[in-house]
């Protein structure tokens, strides 16, 4: 069998999906199925005075209407799952349906269940809710001020958490030769997978079993949480994530809607479906980022960094979402020193409640914000001392021989070759020529900008012991069973829950190469809590690094057992056998052999097994990695800013990423393309906008930019491969490289272009209007 790991293979998933044979949540249609629609609060902050459902109930076809009061004792609040220790955390959980008060525009107030979707939607009109409007607070800094409206009466100053890590003596800054400070706003973004959220629930009143099909990145976490919320044993609750059309972090969270739909099915003893529409999605599904980051970097005139301190004021929204407490603290804070040798570092994070949609993970979750602040401040430091941004990076990047490298924030970077990756990017970009070109164009009044970012991110969640120490309410090991059928075809079960990553292909490559069988002989089974015993899902670039590692180990266990059976049949000792290309043969006697398929049959028939060997051929692994993995890379962005209009034209984008061992370069490149597009989206176009009274003004694609293919130049994606020592595949994770590396590369490029205007920083997104205004008002400083 040819080598498969490291080769470009087309996605096994695609024939099904592109011929319309996918099975998404909305494709599920059950006999007698009812349809739900949610009444949502139009107010960001209001008292619910009265709810009258009588007119809605009177509409023919309406079966039930539930309000918060109807669910008391039946559906609990949906708890956060990241109980951050040492941060005086004040968790406020989403209630199933609002009771007494609503705290953000879009919060669920009632559920209408009807014979079809149209009636359910019509009935929403007939649910009368009287509100008493309360003052709202939208921005996290405003929410911390004295006299700000309180989102929760018992959370003083709206402060949900105060987290501190690391320490830097004040003298480090007082006595430093150079200190550069900057306030950066990492704006609020709204994850928009092509498939919105949805759920279908079915209850068997005889057995008491409840099945919920839903759009989840981690069905076992959904099962664990909803079992508690609905007070049903986990053994009787089945969660199925069928085909899921993207998530980007927004489908990690457990939400109230899915649980309430589950309850309705149980209560009405009929299946109930709810599919979120796009307008709902903008308000109801978690938002992300929204962090005001103040950073100070101290160092020497020669460009050496000595200390960094960072303050993050993070907007958590109205409730603490599933992993909401972790993003601006652990995920962000542990990575503030970036790819550099900065001996001292400290971080303080204020997590703040506001009358906005709760925030949670979004492709990168904390790491993009960490990379953004360090990569921006490094550029500003370089500017301050008159050094080239590449030179200052080369001076401070962690050298290859220093790995594993313990950072000032107490984490250990597994492996790296940062200078090499940067050099590769500089070569591909022809950096020296670009600078010469920039100089030439500047003389003609044209604004060419070159931006560099040398990011590193924390991925592959992770050691479960660490998860426990940081208050993550779950394990983060991964599970795989590799089951060999009597014919030698193989079913691979994984506890990750892929939703667009192409995992059925990459995992099959690993198994097929190891077993020496055709890739088409392997099927991946995932996303169903009844098929897969346990698992922790797909997020944080853990799919391959942790889930794939479990698959590799489970496959090795299959080989190990198959070898004992083959040795028995060939009447040699195991040591005398070799296994390659799917054939077990006696060393030096290749004619004495058994194929993998023959052994599969022998194992399953069990007619003649060696003593002490049980029938069947199956390997299982529960892999808990000893450390996180730390992918890194160097991105270079070239832009031209239009002096007349402020428009930013992307001229080139070079991404040299090191994600450890690449399993499938085609899919890895696809991940880079998607991630870079999302990262550039945040840098240039995307941004959630709220009015002062908490109305989401960017609530549709008319007002919230979804990046499109035509916005981008060809993304020049390349890989260097520094294997990770923490898992048997040597893989690190590729999904979040783009959203981490791209925003600072792009903003650095635009600021570089605007240098003749004396403009040092502008908040993302760098819209033409913002850039144009900046040029108008600061032009005289040129």
């Amino acid at each position, binding site marked *: 069998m040819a080598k498969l790991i490291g080769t470009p293979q087309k996605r096994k998933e695609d024939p099904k999906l592109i011929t319309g044979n996918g099975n998404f949540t909305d494709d599920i249609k059950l006999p007698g199925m009812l349809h739900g629609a949610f009444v949502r609060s139009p107010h960001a902050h209001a008292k619910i005075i009265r709810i009258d459902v009588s007119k809605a109930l009177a509409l023919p076809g309406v079966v039930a209407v539930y309000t918060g009061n109807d669910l008391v004792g039946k559906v609990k609040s949906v708890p956060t799952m990241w109980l951050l220790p040492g941060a005086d955390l004040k968790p406020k959980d989403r209630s199933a349906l609002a009771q007494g008060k609503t705290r953000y525009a879009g919060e669920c107030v009632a559920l209408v269940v009807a014979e079809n979707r149209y009636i359910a939607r019509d009935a929403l009109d007939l649910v009368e809710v009287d*509100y008493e409007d309360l003052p709202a607070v939208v921005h996290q800094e405003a929410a911390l001020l004295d006299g700000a409206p309180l989102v929760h009466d018992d959370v003083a100053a709206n402060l949900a958490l105060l987290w501190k890590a690391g320490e830097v003596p004040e003298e480090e800054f007082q006595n430093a030769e150079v200190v550069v400070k900057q306030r950066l706003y990492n704006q609020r973004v709204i994850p928009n997978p092509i498939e919105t959220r949805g759920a279908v629930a079915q209850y068997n009143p005889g057995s008491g079993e409840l099945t919920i099909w839903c759009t989840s990145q981690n069905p076992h976490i959904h099962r664990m949480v909803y079992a508690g919320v609905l007070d049903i044993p986990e053994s009787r609750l089945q969660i199925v994530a069928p085909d899921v059309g993207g998530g980007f972090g927004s489908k990690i969270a457990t939400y109230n809607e899915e649980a309430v739909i589950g309850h309705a099915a149980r209560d009405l003893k009929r299946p109930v479906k709810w599919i979120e529409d796009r307008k709902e999605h903008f308000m109801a599904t978690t938002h992300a980022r929204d962090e005001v980051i103040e950073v100070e970097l101290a160092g020497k005139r020669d460009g050496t960094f000595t200390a960094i301190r960072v303050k993050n004021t993070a907007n958590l929204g109205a409730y603490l979402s599933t992993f909401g407490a972790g993003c601006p603290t652990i995920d962000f804070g542990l990575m503030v020193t970036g790819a550099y040798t900065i001996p001292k570092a400290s971080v303080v994070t204020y997590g703040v409640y506001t009358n906005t949609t709760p925030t949670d993970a979004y492709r990168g979750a904390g790491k993009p914000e960490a990379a953004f602040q360090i990569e921006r401040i490094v550029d500003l430091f370089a500017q301050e001392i008159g050094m080239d941004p590449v030179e200052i990076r080369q001076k401070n990047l962690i050298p290859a021989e220093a790995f594993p490298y313990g950072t000032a924030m107490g984490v250990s970077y597994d492996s790296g070759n940062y200078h090499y990756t940067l050099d590769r990017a500089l070569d591909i970009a022809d950096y020296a020529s670009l600078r010469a070109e920039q100089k030439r164009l500047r003389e003609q009044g044209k604004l060419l900008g070159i931006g560099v970012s040398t990011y590193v991110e924390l991925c592959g969640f992770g050691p479960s012991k660490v998860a426990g120490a940081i208050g993550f309410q779950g394990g983060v090991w991964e599970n795989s069973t590799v089951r060999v059928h009597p014919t030698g075809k193989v079913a691979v079960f994984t506890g990750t829950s892929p939703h667009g990553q192409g995992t059925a292909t990459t995992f099959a490559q690993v198994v097929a190469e190891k077993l020496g069988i055709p890739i088409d002989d392997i099927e991946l089974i995932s996303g169903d809590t009844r098929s897969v015993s346990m698992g922790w899902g797909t997020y944080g670039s853990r799919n391959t690094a942790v889930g794939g590692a479990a698959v590799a180990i489970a496959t090795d266990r299959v080989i190990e057992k198959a070898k004992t059976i083959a040795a028995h049949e060939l009447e040699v000792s195991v040591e005398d056998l070799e296994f390659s290309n799917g054939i077990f043969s006696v060393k030096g006697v290749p004619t004495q052999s058994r194929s993998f398929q023959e052994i599969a049959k022998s194992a399953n028939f069990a007619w003649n097994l060696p003593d002490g060997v049980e029938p069947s051929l199956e390997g299982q692994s529960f892999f808990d990695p000893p450390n996180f993995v730390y992918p890194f890379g160097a991105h270079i962005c070239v832009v031209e800013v239009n002096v007349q209009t402020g428009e930013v034209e992307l001229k080139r984008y070079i991404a040299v990423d090191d994600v450890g061992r690449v399993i499938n370069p085609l899919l890895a490149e696809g991940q880079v393309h998607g991630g870079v597009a999302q990262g550039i989206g945040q840098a240039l176009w995307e941004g959630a906008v709220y009015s002062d009274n908490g109305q989401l003004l960017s609530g549709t694609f008319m007002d919230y930019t979804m990046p499109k293919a035509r916005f981008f130049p060809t993304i020049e994606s390349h890989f260097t491969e520094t294997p990770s020592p923490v898992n048997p595949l040597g893989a690190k994770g590729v999904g979040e490289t783009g959203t981490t590396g791209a925003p600072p590369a792009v903003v650095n490029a635009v600021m570089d272009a605007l240098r003749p205007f004396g403009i040092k920083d502008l908040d993302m997104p760098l819209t033409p209007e913002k850039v144009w205004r900046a040029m108008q008002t600061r032009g005289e400083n040129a």
Partner: protein
Amino acid sequence: MKLEHTYTFDIPRDVVWKLIQNEEVLKKSIPGCKSFAQMDDGIYQAEMGVSVGPVKGVFTGQVQQVDQKEPSSYRLLVRGKGLPGEIDAVADMRLDEVGQGTQLTCSTEVQVTGVLASVGQRVMGGVAKMVLGQFFKSVDKEMKQLATHSE
């Protein structure tokens, strides 16, 4: 959101003052008005179909006239509620004599919620201008008819 709209009636100010607060005139002139009835002194209950770009819906609400300074100004308080959201508006109406006619200036501060805000905000200014334009045109027509009848 702040909106300002001006309309000039070819009708004397005292007549405009009287008729612009006439229930029948209002009922016939409010675009999409389905019902309009006086509840208490100066408070009207109204039901009105509104269409703001892609956002459509029936709004029910109350209109109250306060701070009346005959014949030159009064203030309208409007609170409406419908599926697409809620509307809370304060409108200052000023009547100035312009020759034989009357110039009416309507300065409004509008707060909206729900889909009306998230989807409709961008087109709201234009729609409000159109709705107010239609309203004053109809009022003009109704007033002229009533004025002719009463002569």
